[in-house]
């Protein structure tokens, strides 16, 4: 069963074809990695799925719902949550508050009850804070919870962004280079975290340059080059694909 179905997606910026004829399915509860050389259009694809900018033609269906034409926040409210290539934690807020901000779409108590300090609303806040602390603990950020988020090193900010996305209880999680800026230990922790996320029934898509990470965690790998999809399949198949090796892995090996 497919959660995400992308058909013939196309986008051009002026004369530059950033994405053309991209079609693939993402099975529910699977982990799909999106790889390709710089400028291949990986982040663009995420931007098109979440409609940060509109695609020219094609279709993006999430659980049968067409996402094209929906606003980014409406797409998020369907459960499609993304992170960004450069960590975008909210400055001016603490680590804990950043994590809590992810929960916004699922708050049960509305604005009025927040103004009125209704007991139920306060309880929800406390429960959420506990949940956020538990998740922060998972990536070793619990003791930093009251620090300003922007004081964290870049790698930790990226992890915080993943936690913030998790607080939103995504059904489809789009992670844009989560391992960039992470050291080896942190990368290993991230791999474990990604597996745990997947085990919770979340469908995950990752843009990633770290090949060993991709090959160990992905169920499906999609390879982009210059906006085109040149291969897709399980990691072992991709590793053996001559075209991929020429376009991407070959360059790295050389």
């Amino acid at each position, binding site marked *: 069963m497919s959660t995400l179905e992308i058909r013939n997606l196309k986008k051009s910026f002026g004369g530059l074809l950033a994405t053309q004829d991209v079609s693939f399915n993402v099975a529910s509860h699977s982990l799909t990695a999106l790889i390709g050389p710089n400028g291949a259009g990986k982040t663009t694809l995420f931007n098109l799925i979440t409609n940060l900018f509109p695609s020219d033609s094609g279709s993006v269906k999430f659980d049968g719902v067409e996402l094209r034409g929906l606003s980014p*926040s409406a797409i998020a409210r369907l459960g499609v949550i993304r992170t960004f290539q450069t960590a*975008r934690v909210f400055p001016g807020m603490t680590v804990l508050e950043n994590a809590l901000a992810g929960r916004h779409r699922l708050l049960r108590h509305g604005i009025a009850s927040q103004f009125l300090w209704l007991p139920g609303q306060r309880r929800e806040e406390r429960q959420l804070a506990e949940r956020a602390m538990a998740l922060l603990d998972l990536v070793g950020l619990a003791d930093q919870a009251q620090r300003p988020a922007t004081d964290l090193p870049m790698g930790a900010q990226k992890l915080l962004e993943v936690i913030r996305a998790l607080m939103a209880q995504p059904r489809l999680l789009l992670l844009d280079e989560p391992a960039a800026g992470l050291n080896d230990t942190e990368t290993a922790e991230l791999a474990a975290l990604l597996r745990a996320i997947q085990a919770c029934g979340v469908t995950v898509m990752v843009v990633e340059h770290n090949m060993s990470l991709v090959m160990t965690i992905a169920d499906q790998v999609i390879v982009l080059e210059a906006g085109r999809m040149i291969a897709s399949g399980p990691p072992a198949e991709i590793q053996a694909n001559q075209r991929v090796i020429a376009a991407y892995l070959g360059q790295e090996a050389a």
Partner: protein
Amino acid sequence: MNSFIQIFLGGVLQGSIYALLALGFSLVFRVTGVINLAQGAFCTLGALITYSLQVEAHLPVPLAASLAVVITTLLAGIAGSVLFVPGLTRLTNSNMLMMTAGMLTLFEGLVLVVWGSQPYALPPFSGERPWRLGGILVQTQGVWVIGVAILVIIGLGWMLMKTRLGQALRACAENPMAARLTGVDVPRLQLFAFALAGAIGAVAGIVVAPAIALEFDTGRLLTISGFIAVAIGGIASFPGAIAGGLLLGLVNQLGTAYVSSLFSNALSLGLLLLVLIVRPAGLIRAGVVRRSDVRDEARVWQHVTRISAKAAWRVAALALLVALCAPYVLSNGLLSALIITLILYVALIGQDMLMGYAGQISLGQAGFMALGGYTSSYLITAQEWQALPAIGMGMLFALAAALVLAGVTLRLRGLYMALATLAFGLLIDSCTVGFDDITGGPSGMVGIPGLELFGLDLDTPARMYYTVLALVVIVLISVAGAMRSGFGRALQAIRTDPLAAAALGVNVVGCKMVAFAISAMLAALSGSLYAFQFHFLAPEMVGAPRSLELVSMLVIGGEGTLIGPLFGAALITILPTLFQPLAIYKTLASGALLAGCALYLPQGMFGIALRLLPRRTGA
């Protein structure tokens, strides 16, 4: 036909001035990305310095005018190097906007101290006698205005297109980072652009001065007109600025002649809103579309301070205790200053939610105060309503106005909302003067009874004080509840990164709208109380100056802190009461404090107070 040509010429004349103002805005905006609200102040300065040199020191006009331009440019250069340019690398664009509002107030205060508050008129350059061309009278000063405008436009165009300096300026405008890497001294050029805009402002002020009466606050009106012109035309393009200026001038003159002078402001506001809806970037577009999934360099360095809950409760309890004792200790004069502080604080809490948390600048909160104050006072005095429903009605009016304004502007990015609120405040200003059978016109509305709730007369200083105090505590606690919950987090997220907020499912426009609506209702409530406290309401009590004063109080006290604005309001309200002779320096000081705090104390006085309290640590 002749009269139409006459009016048309008048429009071109007024439009030339607006075009000159708009050019100054556009120049600074293109090089720095900031809208400089102090632009209009340079006009007043240039004109008044010319007046002093020409009329009091008896210098010939050309010498007086040139000297005035030089002096104004120097003043602009000083303000630019001390405040504006250092701010560019440290502050967000919206905080820069507030800082320029501070500079505007600062210059106004300076004019008030040096020249006083009376109006001045410069003698026309070429005598009073108009020329007669066919059947049309042409004011000679009008020829000067149009001629000078054309000269400045040509000169500026030549400088930008043909000289190396102009090339460097354009490089700064298009890509400051790349310009810096290729060896362009960006801060110096930014300063140059700021001072040059000051010079253009001075020239505009000097040529227009003989045609209008100048007062200390004329600069603000010129700023607003220029701002509207540039928003209509397109701020990122010079032809747009010029076209916008001319269009605004024509609409203004034709509107005044064929509709009504009261509604000429309404017409320009209507034109502005129309442009904002149809073509938000202005009639003439320029500029590059930025990638929105990459954040602009983070110029946000606001510190996060969370007081430990224990310390917060202790301080709050102590403060409340002191506040409860106040009427027994203070003189009546001080007590009423304190009541006014608290009344303004009600509006400031809302404004802090809007500006400090959501990061949406409103320069028209006093407009909502006016809506609330006039509505409730009218209902009570003329319709014999009870106070409570009358106040409620005022708040509903403000809510309706806020929703309409927000519906139009909140979808727009950047500083257009600030612009729209400024225009809104101005519109309310002209309405309070214009609808004189309801509002009492410029002389104000008299005989407003004191506050009476449930048959209880609250019109003694102590009773009014406790009523307002109780209200403040309720409002503060409930707003604080929302700010430390999901709504507050959503607003803060929107402030710093609306795109990332949207990607988490935050309804950006909806949240901003709620914040705006609540801030408008709190302002209306404050406006009603203000009227009851004084038993009187006049346009200048709730006009554009009040809006700027509220911004000053907020920034001086510390925005985004809820408590901070109380300090700001107290400082600006109570100090002049304590030291009467200092009252004339009030505008100057609040402007200097606003600009200085925006730059050096991002959390204002509250930030200082916070350092004395223990921080919250751990979980």
